[in-house]
């Protein structure tokens, strides 16, 4: 591989929602040279490729940021960071105004006020939300975007970030990037578990299949503290297309019903995990399949739904058209997805302080990769991008660029080149990915076991994941793109190990389906009204139980 050294002030890893916004804020608030490394192309990369048809986190009239904190805290059964939620919530409306200025269409009434959907949502046309963000970023003079560059490892010395390593997935150039500060914004992790449709449509999942947990894995390997991985996210989705259901539930007030036509929402509760659990239970007890009741809606509502889904999840509209049955004439079947790790919906991710600095000095986290702050959605990710950007700009005033030794560079390069040069006639990254997903599905609470697990199964899962990790050392890549696939697999395996350790550590069932431990089927506030955190030390995952940050208090690192 050809090698190249790059030096920058602030490196942003991942040009999705949070990463792009962080760059915008940096350009306005500092003279720093900013480099975004994005493994695809920022025009459509990340969660917003197809678009999004609502802003789900907004403080509507008559509500306060604290109301949003309370809502998220309740949904997560207390395991959140109130300080992070509050600093995010305080920015939700200003980032929304900014998005509108950049060109996002938001529905307004005749008085020019935003039209709200429920207590926290705005209606938008968000098909082009990502091109809007990327156009804004591409016009900034101090920001360089390197598309198709996959970052694989941080360089960390004495708990301080010096930069990162990566390679061009087309060019095969190996990059050593020195930076004063790094913002990691790589999103969450999909593809850990066997998906709903593991064959031809294996990537027709809700969360982007290209979000492979890179940021989590790099942090774990570098010894960063992580929080709440055990709060997995399982989405309730339209069957087959895995399209969102919120538009049906909130837009046309469709209720969840079983095959007998009974509304079962009331029996299980309406938090996200309860909605999934209710649907699973109705199926297990023989009252499936379950639906969102759309029969009887008006033709105008049909038409509005066809359009709303084209702006976000076009497969669902195509399915309605192809089947010849619009939602007014056929209820929409629903199912739970495979579990994801995603800090924008639940609280999994880096353990950060209120400035979004991780436990590694100079490394900031924003968006789905940052923990403790669920229910971020698009605007929350932008808000965190802003907070992390401002903190990074402040940090570089007092910290010179880190330097990466040639020795470390050589060893990372040798690792990458090893995959390109070694031969393997037996196993491919694809086979091992399937093996990993099968293990997680069977032993770590996948769709197969209705998301349930016990301790013995988790032990087996860990044993088998370690074995697949060992096999992955020997994989062969034909080209740099396949090299990325190998790194992505290895990232997922690292995340799986941490996830299993977290699931094992929480001896209770606080959230149905998200972490349904059959050995401990009840909530245990006496011992587990706390955060489960972890740090990897010498290849082993050490669990740390931390007290909840109290209402009105803010957590700061003591390092």
């Amino acid at each position, binding site marked *: 591989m050809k090698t190249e050294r790059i030096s920058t002030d602030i490196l942003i890893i991942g040009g999705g929602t949070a990463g792009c916004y962080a760059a915008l804020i940096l350009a306005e608030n500092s003279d720093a040279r900013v480099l975004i490394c994005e493994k695809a*192309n920022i025009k459509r990369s990340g969660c917003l490729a197809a678009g999004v048809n609502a802003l789900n986190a907004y403080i509507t009239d008559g509500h306060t940021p604290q109301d949003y904190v309370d809502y998220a805290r309740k949904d997560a059964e207390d395991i959140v960071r109130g300080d992070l939620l509050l600093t995010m919530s305080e920015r939700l409306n200003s980032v929304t105004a900014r998005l509108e200025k950049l060109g996002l269409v938001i529905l307004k009434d005749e008085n020019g006020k935003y039209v709200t959907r429920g207590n926290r949502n705005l209606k938008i046309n968000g098909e082009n939300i990502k091109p809007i963000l990327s156009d804004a970023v591409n016009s900034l003079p101090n920001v360089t975007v390197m598309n198709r560059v996959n970052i694989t490892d941080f360089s960390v010395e004495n708990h301080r970030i010096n930069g990162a390593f990566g390679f061009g997935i087309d060019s095969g150039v190996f990059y050593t990037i020195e930076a004063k500060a790094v913002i990691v914004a790589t999103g969450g992790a999909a593809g850990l578990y066997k998906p709903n449709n593991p064959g031809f449509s294996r990537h027709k999942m809700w969360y982007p*299949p290209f979000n492979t947990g890179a940021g989590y894995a790099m942090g774990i390997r570098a010894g960063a503290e992580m929080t709440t991985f055990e709060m997995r996210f399982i989405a309730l989705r339209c069957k087959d297309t895995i399209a969102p259901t919120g538009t049906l539930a909130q837009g046309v007030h469709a209720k969840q019903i079983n095959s007998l036509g009974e509304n079962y929402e009331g029996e299980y509760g309406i938090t996200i995990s309860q909605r999934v659990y209710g649907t699973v239970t109705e199926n297990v007890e023989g009252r499936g399949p379950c639906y969102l009741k759309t029969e009887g809606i008006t033709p105008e509502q049909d038409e509005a739904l066809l*359009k709303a889904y084209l702006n976000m999840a076009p497969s669902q509209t195509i399915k309605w058209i192809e089947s010849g049955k619009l939602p007014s004439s056929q209820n929409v079947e629903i199912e739970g997805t495979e579990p994801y790790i995603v800090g924008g919906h639940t609280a999994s991710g880096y353990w950060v302080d209120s400035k979004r600095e991780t436990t590694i000095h100079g490394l900031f986290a924003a968006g789905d990769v940052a923990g403790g702050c669920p229910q971020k959605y698009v605007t929350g990710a932008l808000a965190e991008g802003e907070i992390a950007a401002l903190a990074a700009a402040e940090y570089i005033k007092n910290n010179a660029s880190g330097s990466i030794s040639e020795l470390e560079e050589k060893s990372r390069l040798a690792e990458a080149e090893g995959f390109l040069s070694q031969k393997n006639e037996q196993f491919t990254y694809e086979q091992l990915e399937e093996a990993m997903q099968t293990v997680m599905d069977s032993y770590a609470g996948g769709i197969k076991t209705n998301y349930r697990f016990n301790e013995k199964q988790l032990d087996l899962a860990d044993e088998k994941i370690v074995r697949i990790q060992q096999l992955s050392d020997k994989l062969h890549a034909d080209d740099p793109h396949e090299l990325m696939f190998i790194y992505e697999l290895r990232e997922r395996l690292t995340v799986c190990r941490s996830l299993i350790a977290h699931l094992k550590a929480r001896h209770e069932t606080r959230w149905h389906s998200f972490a349904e431990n059959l050995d401990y089927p009840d909530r245990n506030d006496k011992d587990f009204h706390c955060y489960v955190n972890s740090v990897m030390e010498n290849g082993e995952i050490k669990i740390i139980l931390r007290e909840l940050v109290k209402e009105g208090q803010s957590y700061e690192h003591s390092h």
Partner: protein
Amino acid sequence: MSIAIDAEKCIGCGRCSEVCPGSLIKLESKRAYIKYPKDCWGCTSCIKECPVHAVKFYLGADIGGMGSLVHTEKEGNILNWIIEAPDGKVTKISINQKESNKY
């Protein structure tokens, strides 16, 4: 979940390949092709980029797909979605991008 690219229509501009969030589309002999069809997320970014409507999207049979091919055509602020069924029936849904969703 995947796309079909009409090699006769393709002009090799590479815009679909550039924008794919999975970098799944490659160019060979100045024609685009999807190298990893099973890895397509179904985001339809590529079909919106194609200036000659050579890229079409379809649902896999495993998720109930029945063979319709989908592409988009842009006219000013209007994004037209064109769904062609195997029996020749064409459905067109026009969305004004300056108008918000109702839901």
